[in-house]
């Protein structure tokens, strides 16, 4: 659920990049950071281990324009992919509005992909959230590598819920489909927000943003 600050007239959305270790989540944020004007974004805050793995999370604030008089802010986070950091992932997932699940397309990472996806479902469930309703997209990353998993298998394994979401083949290190993924998930997010908060309610109904 977005955070709406009436005093400051701000709406804050939280988008979390989730997925197994070494999948390319941080690369996504690095590329996004490099392509957005400094006027509209903050610094990319990244806390990494000596081996350059994400230790806690990466954070990138993006200031957008006004929706119905409210300034919108997008907060982009990654989670640490390593299995042992589940408490951190749960923390980062709090109040999440949308998820980009970054898949590692290498054959030997398939099990980790599935494990991470199930972990996402479990952690969302702990917050009474579900992939049945939460805006999310799949990003099949590292498509530039040789001998990678065919997308029909990735779809079969990770996009076989009743709700079939959009998926993107990406190369986060070069930027291919990085913004396409983010744009897609943001569309879902704004559409959901519009449905729940902005569209005119029946007479007598409350309308948090317009009130």
């Amino acid at each position, binding site marked *: 659920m977005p955070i709406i600050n009436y005093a400051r*007239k701000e709406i804050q959305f939280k988008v979390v990049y989730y997925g197994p270790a070494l999948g390319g989540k941080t690369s996504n944020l690095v590329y996004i950071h490099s392509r957005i004007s400094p006027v509209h974004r903050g610094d990319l805050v990244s806390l990494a281990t000596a081996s350059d793995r994400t230790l806690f999370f990466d954070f990138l604030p*993006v200031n957008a*324009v006004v*929706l119905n008089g409210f300034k919108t802010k997008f907060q982009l986070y990654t989670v640490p992919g390593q299995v042992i950091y589940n408490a951190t992932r749960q923390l980062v997932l709090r109040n999440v509005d949308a998820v980009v699940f970054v898949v590692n397309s290498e054959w030997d990472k398939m099990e980790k992909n599935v494990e991470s996806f199930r972990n996402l479902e479990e952690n969302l469930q702990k917050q009474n959230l579900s992939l049945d309703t939460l805006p999310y997209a799949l990003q099949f990353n590292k498509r530039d590598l040789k001998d990678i998993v065919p997308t*029909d298998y990735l779809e079969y394994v990770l996009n076989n819920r*009743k709700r079939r979401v959009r998926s993107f083949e990406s190369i986060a290190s070069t930027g291919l489909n990085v913004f396409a993924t983010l*744009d897609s998930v943001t569309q879902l997010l704004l559409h959901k927000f519009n449905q729940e908060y902005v569209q005119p309610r029946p007479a007598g109904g409350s309308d948090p943003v317009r009130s």
Partner: protein
Amino acid sequence: MSSNLRLGLNSIFLNFPHDLATPEIREVSQTEPWIEVPLSLIQPQLASGRIIVTTAKLRELLPTDLKERLNGIDPAVEIPIPLQEIFKHLPSEAIQRRQDQEIEQVPVTIATPFTLQAREDAARFGSAPTKPSELLSEPPLVEAPLASEAPEPQPQAPETLAEQNLLNPLSSERLQAIFMTDKTLDLHGAIEQIGKLPGLRGCLLSHQNGRKLTGQLGDPEQESVVSNLLPALFQQISDRISETKFGSLETVTFYCDRQQLSTFMQGQLCLTVLHENRPFKPGVREKIQTVIGEIIQLNAF
């Protein structure tokens, strides 16, 4: 669909767990025998991203002359079968999607703060543009692009759906009432009307991303600078002001040596007016503020 998959043993033994890979097993990986593995053993595991068989089962499947190679290994130990090897032989029907899937669609066109970059990247990489669903029929709800790179030189055609939409007739009685005219105004007309308000010499409307939408300030070069610079500058000032108790920023006036200009910003629209010789006459600033609000209401989120 065949009930068995014929898999190369060398691939399986090449990926054998290191601690179990005896010289006898490594020797098998150099050869090219094969085994038939029941699909019923593999298919239920496909969704997990990992296929395993017990040593006992593998031994059962091995050719008679190779069975002894697994002697000494706990029959319960799980041996992975490489997915690559399986997929060389797996019939496509084995990974069919469920039939009741509902494909997610965004039912309305929503351009996001990241749409421009997505389109730019699509063009750069030669991939399919990430336009919103073609099933979309309603007008755009929001257009919130961020300027990521230096804006293109003018003249510019409308880049976004919302920009395109801004050029449609503005069927607002309120807008007509503000300017006291019976004429239906399009965006050009409304901006032209602003430029004719008392004490003003010109009016320019630009998008937050730096693109000029309509209007004129007399000098195209000057207009380009105004379109590119002022939205970002206004936003910066607005952000800082919002941290104070002054309230939200509505207008910024620049007193320059030769001319004075004032900038308004609402939503993704930035409107700049050129003054004749002194700042606003009473009521003009408020009127402009109302007009921008009305245009936003008519066209944007």
